């Protein structure tokens, strides 16, 4: 498999002159294509620490840029701009502006763990991707992503009852993200299922939707988790200087 890398030369960094003669040679137009000199002075020197403080990001400092993660990445296959190695590099450099160009991609990691499996330094790039997405959200650079909405809906149900019920998750997620529940493909799927699903099973599912499945005596676990979450939330915000 080839190593996928991104070109460091972006069209907006290139410059051309209508008419230019260098050393007596006419190099007008695109024959005078140059990369503009850039001076970067606004590094976020705390960026690596910020990401390391968020859940999943703690091992970012171990990365030595071998690109095994990007090479095996499921999402990179679909979109070459999704580049974990490059983002880890930018975060460690503190090149915040550059990372923010890709801010709307950060959440798209599908947690297939190929990167963590391949990483020779146990960076856990999958965790770092999640930490970066959280970082962008907490700092207000991005809105809450669909993935984060899903995580929140899921976690809230577990914290509340100890279990989840899929129908409730789907409804809750669509409500959070403002999507209609009656999506053509979901309808089609229910229809196909209904065609051969015995009535008893249908009743069972309807009951599960009405009476939430729950773990008995969950109250104390719920309280313990909630307390810990409040603590973690405060710690995350503190790490990003948001309090």
């Amino acid at each position, binding site marked *: 498999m080839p190593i996928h890398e991104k*070109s460091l*030369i*972006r*069209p907006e960094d*290139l410059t*051309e002159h209508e008419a230019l003669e260098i050393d*007596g*040679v*006419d*190099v*007008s*137009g*695109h*024959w*005078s*294509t*140059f990369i503009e000199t850039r001076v970067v002075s606004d590094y976020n020197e705390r960026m690596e620490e910020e990401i390391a403080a968020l859940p999943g990001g703690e091992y970012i400092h171990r990365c030595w840029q071998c690109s095994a993660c990007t090479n095996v990445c499921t999402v990179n296959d679909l979109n070459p701009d999704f580049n974990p190695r490059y983002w880890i590099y930018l975060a460690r450099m503190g090149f915040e502006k550059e990372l923010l160009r890709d801010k709307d991609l950060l959440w798209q990691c599908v947690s297939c763990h190929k990167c963590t499996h391949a990483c020779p330094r146990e960076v856990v790039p999958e965790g770092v991707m999640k930490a970066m997405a959280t970082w962008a959200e907490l700092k207000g650079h991005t809105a809450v992503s669909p993935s984060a909405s899903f995580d929140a809906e899921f976690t809230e149900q577990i914290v509340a009852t100890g279990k989840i019920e899929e129908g409730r998750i789907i409804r809750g997620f669509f409500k959070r993200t403002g999507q209609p529940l009656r999506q053509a493909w979901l309808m089609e799927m229910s229809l196909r299922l209904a065609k051969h699903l015995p009535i008893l099973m249908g009743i069972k599912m309807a009951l599960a939707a009405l009476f939430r499945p729950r773990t008995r005596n969950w109250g104390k676990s719920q309280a313990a988790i909630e307390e810990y979450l409040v603590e973690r939330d405060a710690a995350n915000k503190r790490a990003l200087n948001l309090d």
Partner: protein
Amino acid sequence: MIGVNGMRTMAELEARLLTRDAALTPVALADELLDLCEQILCHWLSHKQVVPTEAKVEGFRLLALHRQGCKGEPSFNACRESCRELAYYYNLLHLEPEHPQITSRMAMARAVAMHLCLFVGGKFEVPELGDDCCSSQALRAGAA
């Protein structure tokens, strides 16, 4: 192509390059290739109705002719490296005619000259040849 001022035609120049005369010494080959290539660039300049210069740049008339050639037509810069490479081989063959790798150097010099001949010959037929500079790829992709 008709000869100008006693010059050989493009077809004759190409034919001469293709003979790969084995009798030539390294120095004689260097001299002949430089002469042939200067004539090739003169053809281009005559085609552009420019009088070929007798001046030299960095010791080579070939490089001065190239400068003239790309004036107003920067796409002619596509053969800049070929011209400079030929100058390099000219120097190599003159300075170290006894070098152990002389056979390969002579072959390279011939190949570079042939490359220049093909580019300029092609330029007569297809004016767009050399229009794309690879470093501007990103910009051209954006424009397309």
